[in-house]
């Protein structure tokens, strides 16, 4: 009887572990302290950084003003 109870409890623990761990790796892989992900999913940070970049490049036109006509 003890052995049966031990097996049932053990089985339950294993099932719960499988249930929770199986679903998490994809989410974890990107949501861990990964600065790429945390920054690129944060619009406020991106606006701040892209404004910084724009200020640094304000004297550069980005593309030639000599282009004329359709490509």
């Amino acid at each position, binding site marked *: 009887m003890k052995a049966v109870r031990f097996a049932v409890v053990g089985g339950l623990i294993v099932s719960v572990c499988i249930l929770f761990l199986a679903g998490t790796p*994809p989410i974890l*892989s990107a949501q861990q302290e*990964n*600065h*790429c*992900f945390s920054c690129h999913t944060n619009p406020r940070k991106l606006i701040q950084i892209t404004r910084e970049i724009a200020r640094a490049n304000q004297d550069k036109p980005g593309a030639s*003003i000599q282009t004329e006509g359709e*490509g």
Partner: protein
Amino acid sequence: MTPLAPHEKIFVDSEFAEDENHGTMGCEECHGGDPNEPDWQKAHIDVVKDPSYPDPSFTCGLCHDDITEHYQTSLHYSLAPFKKVIDKRASDDKAVYTAVNDAREAHCTSCHSSCGQCHVSRPDAVDGGLLESHLFQRRPPMQTVCTACHGSRVEKEYLGKNEGIPADVHKKKYFKCTKCHSAYEMHGDGNEYANRYEVQNAPTCISCHEEIYTDAAENAEQHRQHKDRLSCQVCHSMPYKNCTSCHFGTDKQGYKFFKTQASTMAFKIGFNPLQSERRPEKFVTLRHVPVDQDSFKFYVENGLSNFDRVPTWKMATPHNIQRKTPQNESCNACHGNEKLFLREQDVEPKYAAANQTVVVPADQIPGKVSE
């Protein structure tokens, strides 16, 4: 195409982490950089913006090797016909040819595509920016990918943006580009084609309109009479855009530029410059393409000294198809109608020699018939 704000171009939807195929990888596995570095500038050292170009073998190809196997022969990647045509026109002098080839690579070949620039972001040639915030798109969206590059001609024709000319009949049936242009065509099949009309997986009208030459078809007799003599577009295309000349170089700040002359709308039937078993028609629609003897002048004098080897009026398949067009209203709307054909007087004198093989002499224009 709606432009994206700078931050929108690089914003990633957190839902991407739930993509069971691509979200399981760390960003750095494809893009490099340092995900543990909190300073964004240091974190971006050695970052690769488009990890699928020029070689997707170690990114997309790790899973999609059946597709990337032939990526080098995809015309969207290789732009091989550009090189072939420019090589034909280029000078035989080695030094001059090298200058032409370098300029071609710097300018003409910069408009390539890649796995990423169709399925993840807008193409670099139109300033990039993520599509749907990095959520991979199985079918590239028409107006932010396909017509982002094919905008001057195909987009305006297909969507009816040229004044007075309606949208293509297929657009009215809600067809997107991918309805006709399959992934097999886009991804390359291992063969190196000289031009897009040779591509085996390219769409043909007959693959949908398979009954057109049978008795079941409307106007079966007309279709049978003209089979293999005219391309479908000769009867079913509306006037389309023609561009002239193209000169390019780099400005004082080092930015690349190009200049083309004003585009003109026209419809011209000429001799088929690419007659083959696959394209046996005698007459096809021709479009003037933006090229000139002096296109490479910024880099080298007389770069295209063999300019006349290739016509500047090129075979075209305009994307503005209609069932009824001015030229198919009646037999004599086309037969004997000189204005529809590319005549000597339609060609600029400096391009005359190049177009000798496609210009239609008066005695070759199909004569009027009794209706």
